[in-house]
C-alpha cells in the first residue's frame, strides 16, 4: 500500500509542535513595504486560509514560503528545517497556482508524473502513483488526454493531483477557485477540503472570498497591509474579531461611532447618535470608540434594559434572500445604516417607513477603538 492510500485511511495526526513557523518576515519592493514583521505558525495537517483585500501581500507571502522569492528579513522553517534560503526545488513544497500552470505540451498523466520523474522514481512505481492521484481527484479516464482540452474544473483537479502526488510537506494554494463559476466553485471547495483532510496535508490557502475561507479552514489568518491582524478559527474571527478591519472584512455588521461615558464593572457605556449603548470591555471615559453588532444578533422589539441595548430606527428596505430576510434601517440622523437579519418577518408584515425598536444583547456588542 502506498503512502497516499495509507494516509487516506489513517486519521490525521495532530502534532503539538508547529509544522510551519514564520518569524519576523519582511519583504519590500523598492519603497513599497509589502510584508512587515509577519509571524505565522501552522500546525501539522492544518488547513489555514489567508484572507485579505487585494494587494495586502497574500501572494507575496505564499511565494516566500515557496521559495520563488527571498525575504528581506525573517525566517521560515518547516518541521525542523530552516528553509529561508533554500531554493524552491529543494523545499518539498507543493503549489497550486491560480491559473493552474499545467504544462500544455504534456498529457494529463505526464503532468501529474512530472514531479515524480524529478525524484528519479522507477517507471512502474511512478505509473501506479499517478493512477492513484488521478483516482483521488476522479480523473482516471483522462490520463492520456491532452491537458489543453480539459474544462476549468478538470484542469483544477489535475493541478491538485500534480501538487499532492509528490507528498509535499506543505501545500500552497493561491486562489485556486477564482476562475470557476459559483456552482462549480462550491463543489470543488468541499471536494478539495475532503481530499486534503484525508491526506492530512498541511495547507495554506489564499482567498479574498470570506465565505470560501469560512467554509474551508481550520484557522483563518486575516491579513491587512502586510500583517496578520487576526489568526484564529472561523467562529472566533466572526464573533470576536480583533480589530475593526477584521470586523468589516469578514461578514456584515452595524457600526456606530461614539464616545465612552464611563466603565463600570467590565461594562462600557458609550454615547452614540442613537442613544446610550453598553458593551463588555473597559475604556477610559472620553475615548473615541466604535460599537458594532452582527445583523443576526439584532431582533425586533424592546428587551429588558439590564441585558439588552435598545434603539429606535426607521425601516428603509426589506430584502428577501430565501433563507433569511435582510431589514435595512437608518437612525434619526439618517446616516447610520443598520442591518438586521431575520429568519421570518413578523405576522402582519412590515412596511418601509415604520419606526421600530431594535434590541441586541449587551454581550453580543463589540467594541473597538475608533480608527
Amino acid at each position, binding site marked *: 500500500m502506498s503512502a497516499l492510500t495509507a494516509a487516506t485511511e489513517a486519521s490525521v495526526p495532530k502534532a503539538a509542535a508547529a509544522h510551519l513557523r514564520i518569524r519576523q518576515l519582511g519583504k519590500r519592493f523598492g519603497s513599497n513595504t509589502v510584508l512587515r514583521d509577519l509571524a505565522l505558525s501552522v500546525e501539522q495537517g492544518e488547513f489555514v486560509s489567508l484572507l485579505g483585500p487585494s494587494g495586502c501581500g497574500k501572494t507575496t507571502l505564499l511565494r516566500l514560503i*515557496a521559495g*520563488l522569492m527571498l525575504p528581506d528579513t525573517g525566517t521560515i522553517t518547516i518541521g525542523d528545517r530552516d528553509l529561508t534560503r533554500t*531554493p*524552491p*526545488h529543494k*523545499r518539498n*513544497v*507543493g*503549489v497550486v*497556482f491560480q*491559473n493552474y*500552470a*499545467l*504544462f*500544455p*505540451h504534456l498529457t494529463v498523466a505526464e503532468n501529474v508524473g*512530472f*514531479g515524480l520523474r*524529478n*525524484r528519479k522514481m522507477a517507471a512502474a512505481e511512478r505509473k501506479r502513483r499517478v493512477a492513484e492521484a488521478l483516482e483521488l481527484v476522479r480523473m482516471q479516464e483522462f490520463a492520456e488526454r491532452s491537458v489543453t482540452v480539459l474544462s476549468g474544473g478538470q484542469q483544477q483537479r489535475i493541478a491538485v493531483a*500534480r*501538487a499532492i502526488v*509528490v507528498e509535499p510537506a506543505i501545500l500552497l494554494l493561491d486562489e485556486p477557485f477564482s476562475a470557476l463559476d459559483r456552482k462549480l466553485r462550491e463543489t470543488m471547495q468541499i471536494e478539495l477540503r475532503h481530499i486534503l483532510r484525508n491526506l492530512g496535508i498541511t495547507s495554506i490557502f489564499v482567498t479574498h472570498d470570506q465565505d470560501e475561507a469560512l467554509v474551508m479552514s481550520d484557522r483563518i489568518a486575516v491579513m491587512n497591509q502586510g500583517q496578520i491582524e487576526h489568526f484564529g478559527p472561523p467562529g472566533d474571527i466572526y464573533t470576536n474579531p480583533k480589530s475593526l478591519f477584521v470586523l468589516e472584512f469578514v461578514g456584515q455588521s452595524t457600526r456606530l461611532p461614539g464616545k465612552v461615558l464611563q466603565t463600570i464593572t467590565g461594562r462600557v457605556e458609550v454615547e452614540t447618535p442613537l442613544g446610550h449603548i453598553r458593551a463588555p470591555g473597559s475604556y477610559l471615559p472620553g475615548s473615541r470608540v466604535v460599537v458594532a453588532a452582527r445583523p443576526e444578533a439584532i431582533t425586533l422589539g424592546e428587551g429588558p434594559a439590564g441585558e439588552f441595548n435598545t434603539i429606535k430606527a426607521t425601516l428603509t428596505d426589506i430584502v428577501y434572500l430565501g433563507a433569511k430576510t435582510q431589514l435595512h434601517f437608518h437612525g434619526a440622523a439618517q446616516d447610520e445604516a443598520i442591518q438586521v437579519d431575520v429568519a421570518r418577518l413578523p405576522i402582519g408584515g412590515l412596511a418601509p417607513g415604520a419606526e421600530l425598536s431594535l434590541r441586541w444583547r449587551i454581550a453580543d456588542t463589540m467594541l473597538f477603538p475608533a480608527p
Partner: protein
Amino acid sequence: MPVLARLFAGLMLFLVLVFLLAPIAIVIPISFSPSTVFSFPPTGFSLRWYENIRNADGIIKALWLSTQIAALSTAVSLVLGTLCAIAIVRGAIPGARLVSTFMISPLMIPGLVLGIAFLHAAREVGLRDGYIPLLLAHVVVTMPFIMRTVLASLALFDFTMVDAARMLGCAYPAALWRVLVPNILPGFVSGALFAFIVSFDNYPVSIFLVDVHTKTLPIQLLNQLEMSPDPTLAAVATVMIVLTILALFACDRLVGLRRMAAV
C-alpha cells in the same frame, strides 16, 4: 462584383508567383543542360555540372565553411538570444525595452557598415584569422531574427509554468529546458531557420571579413562567376533549393509550418 474581384485577385496572385518563382525555377533545367553557357531551354540532359561542383575550385570548401558559420552563429544566437529575451520579458534588467531595440538594431544597419565596423574592430583587437571575426559578425547578423521570434513567443508564454516546474523539483535551468523550451519550440525553429538562411547567404558583411583561406559560399560563387561562368553555379543553386525545401518539410514535421508562421 465579387466573382470578377476574385478572378482579378487570382490573376494577380498568379502573376506575382510567376514573377517571383520563374527566375528561381529556370535555374533547375539549366543545371541539367550539357551546354557550357547558360542556355534556356536546355538542349539535352547531363549531370556534368553536378560533377563539376567537386572539381570547381573551392566550392565544396566554401559550402562547408558557410554551413559551419551558419550553424554555429545560429546556435550561439539561439542560446544567448533566448537568455537575453527571457531577461527582457521578465523585466529583470533595467531599460529592457532599450536592450531589446539594441539587439534587433543590426537589422536596420546596412550590411556594408556592419562589415567595415567588424573589420576595424577585428584589426583593433588584433584578430588576423578570418574565422573568429566572421563567426562573431554572423552572430550579430543572426541575433535580430532569433530575438524577434523568441520575444514574440515568450510574450505568449506563461512563466508560472516555470515556477510550477521548480516547485516540482527542477532547478531553474532544468525548468527552462523542460517547460519553456518545448512550449516555444515553434519560435525557436522558425527563428533558427531564418537565422541560418540569413547567415548562409550573407554577402555584404562577410565580404569584409573573408581572406584567401576562409571564403563563404556566396563570395566563392561570385568569384566563380567571374572566372568561369558555366552552369556549375546553376547546379549549386539547384542543390540549395532542394536542401531548403527539405528543411521546410523537416520543420513542418517537427512543429508545423502553421505554428511557425504564427510566431
